[in-house]
């Protein structure tokens, strides 16, 4: 075995081990503490969990790509809200009045395009100005939120289209629409990162940008494409979620960026870039959702969820540091 292989295996498997641990813990604790007779590891319950993971999960796949690339996107929550409002608002625009149910694909397309454009705008600014992605997206987080409020002030935007609701609530092979989208996005982003030149270059840029430049990789366009992808995915997440709920508040999506980043980091993606994959992120998303559901199952309130997730995030970071050989060397300085 190569040196470091053990720690590598430990790290990549850690999130799945953690999920199993959660399942066992909540099943056992649920026997004693739960108010309902239903078992925690009920099949129905797990399917519901997958569906509930979708909004955060879909964005998290894009965040994995952006973070592997060495950037970060804090504006996803605001992009999510903009896409949601465009989806619901555009269905009531007079110019689309004659379309009937054909307004649905048009509204979807508009919302997805808006998300992609906003993401690309972030990417373009990062590329052309050289300002750190953290600052650029911190700014656009505020700016995009301002745009959200411009649509309808502080009032919620609502529009229910029953065809759309039926589509969002449909089940195929036992899985809800949102679950299918989550799985499809995971697969697509996995393929993009592991099997395409763009994905390889994204890793190279995140690992060592200077080396990537010297190897002739055009850093800027790759970063911009990744930001466009995360914008698209934030919009996709919104489009799926609000097709079902039909009403959006201007504050919706706030703090999503923090949940998403937590899931991605739990999944083993390095905050400095160059390492991580969507399978780990998928584990991170499931782990968080399990924790929320499980703590609810044993009767803990929401405050405990926040406390536990925060501490787990720090614990993961600490363990990662201990398992990381390079990190130990740095400690000596």
């Amino acid at each position, binding site marked *: 075995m190569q040196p470091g292989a053990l720690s590598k295996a430990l790290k990549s498997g850690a999130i799945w081990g953690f999920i199993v641990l959660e399942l066992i813990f909540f099943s056992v604790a649920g026997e004693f503490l739960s108010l309902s007779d239903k078992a925690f590891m009920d099949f129905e319950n797990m399917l519901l969990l997958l569906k509930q993971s979708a909004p955060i999960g879909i964005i998290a796949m894009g965040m994995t790509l952006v973070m592997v690339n060495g950037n970060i996107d*804090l504006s996803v929550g605001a992009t999510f809200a903009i896409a949601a409002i465009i989806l619901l608002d555009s269905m009531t625009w007079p110019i689309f009045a004659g379309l009937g149910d054909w307004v649905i694909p048009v509204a979807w397309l508009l919302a997805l395009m808006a998300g992609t454009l906003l993401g690309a705008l972030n990417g373009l*600014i990062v*590329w*052309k*100005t*050289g*300002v*750190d992605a*953290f*600052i*650029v997206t*911190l*700014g*656009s*987080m*505020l*700016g*995009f*939120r*301002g*745009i*959200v*409020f*411009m649509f309808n*002030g502080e009032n919620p935007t609502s529009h229910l289209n029953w065809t759309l609701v039926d589509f969002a609530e449909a089940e195929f092979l036992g899985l809800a629409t949102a679950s299918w989208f989550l799985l499809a996005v995971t697969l697509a982003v996995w393929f993009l990162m592991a099997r395409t030149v763009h994905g390889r270059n994204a890793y190279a840029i995140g690992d060592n940008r200077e080396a990537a*430049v010297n190897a002739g990789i*055009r*850093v*800027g366009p790759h*970063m911009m494409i990744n930001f466009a992808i995360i914008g698209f995915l934030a919009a996709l997440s919104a489009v799926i979620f609000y097709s079902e709920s039909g009403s959006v508040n201007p504050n919706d999506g*706030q*703090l999503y960026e*923090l949940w998403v*980043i*937590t899931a991605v*980091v739990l999944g083993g993606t390095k*905050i*400095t870039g160059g390492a991580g994959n969507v399978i780990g992120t998928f584990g991170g998303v499931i782990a968080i959702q399990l924790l929320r559901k499980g703590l609810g199952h044993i009767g803990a*309130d*929401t*405050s*405990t*969820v*926040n*406390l*536990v*997730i*925060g*501490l*787990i*995030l*720090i614990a993961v*970071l*600490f363990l990662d*540091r201990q398992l990381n050989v390079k990190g130990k060397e*740095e*400690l000596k*300085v």
Partner: protein
Amino acid sequence: MSVTQENAGDLREGIMATPTKQQIGTVLARQGILIAFAVFMIAFTLANPKFLSVDNVFSVVRSSAILGVMALGVTFVVISGNLDLSVGSMMSFSTIVVLDLHDKIGPALAIPAMFAMTLCLGAFIGFLVGYLRLNSLIVTLGMLSAIHGLTLTYSGGQNMDIADKEGTWFSVFGQGTALGIPVPILIFAVLAALLGVVLAKTAFGRKVYAVGGNGTAATFSGIRRARTVFNCYMISAACVATAGLIQASRSLGSQNTVGQGLELEVLAAVILGGASLLGGSGTIFKTVIGVLILGFIQNGLLLLGLQFYVQFVVTWVIIILAVWLDIAAKRGKLWSPIA
């Protein structure tokens, strides 16, 4: 890496030959934030003469004081090369705690107790980032969530209110005036002056810059890096506790989410003041300017009759422009060299 003769020559030339254009650019960028501030003030005053009236200025600074006090502490953290995303949650925590203890043990004991509890949180973060050297972004992100949970557990999810709102001297920190000046402004000004001196004139301040500029070099020069970072987080926690005190005293009642989202606004103010997220640069004075710019823009746009959310968009443009011009001047080129 060994420095060859040619390399050394290049280096020397690089230092000696400074194009004038770049010099002008540097001066503009160094003082850019002040110039922008001045332009804003003049423009808004021309648009609405009320803008620079004493009443209005007082009201702007007073409402910026909470954000400002927090930004002072975060400036230390950012200069030391770290981030603090937990200040919003922490401010909610100290507000809730001091309001709760006010009725239980009286204000005179509640205030030091709240400071002690908030400083414990700061010490925990400082230990994790300073001594264990964990990534500050993730640690404080985790603490953002954890402290929010802690606050909710403490309050049981209920809003916290002081029973006797009329008869308590506790309201002096948020609502009182001394020497004709509102107390929050006084606290902000005194803290800014104090921390400004600490950062610019003391050995500790030098160490903060050294650690943020080049941590390894600082360690080799005998600076205790871990302790310096730890102290920065303690200063930040103390500032957050002060902000929580002002907030609690101003409203005498509070929700659990009172500080939610403030962490990013605080960071925006610090960055607007020109502190680099890489650490090693920034001053208290510039942070104060950053805070005031945000406050006056908000107020100016409202006086122009615009909705509050317009300021979000304006702030977005200003943050990016400010940071962009700053680094453009440093590299001598407007556009980034990234291919």
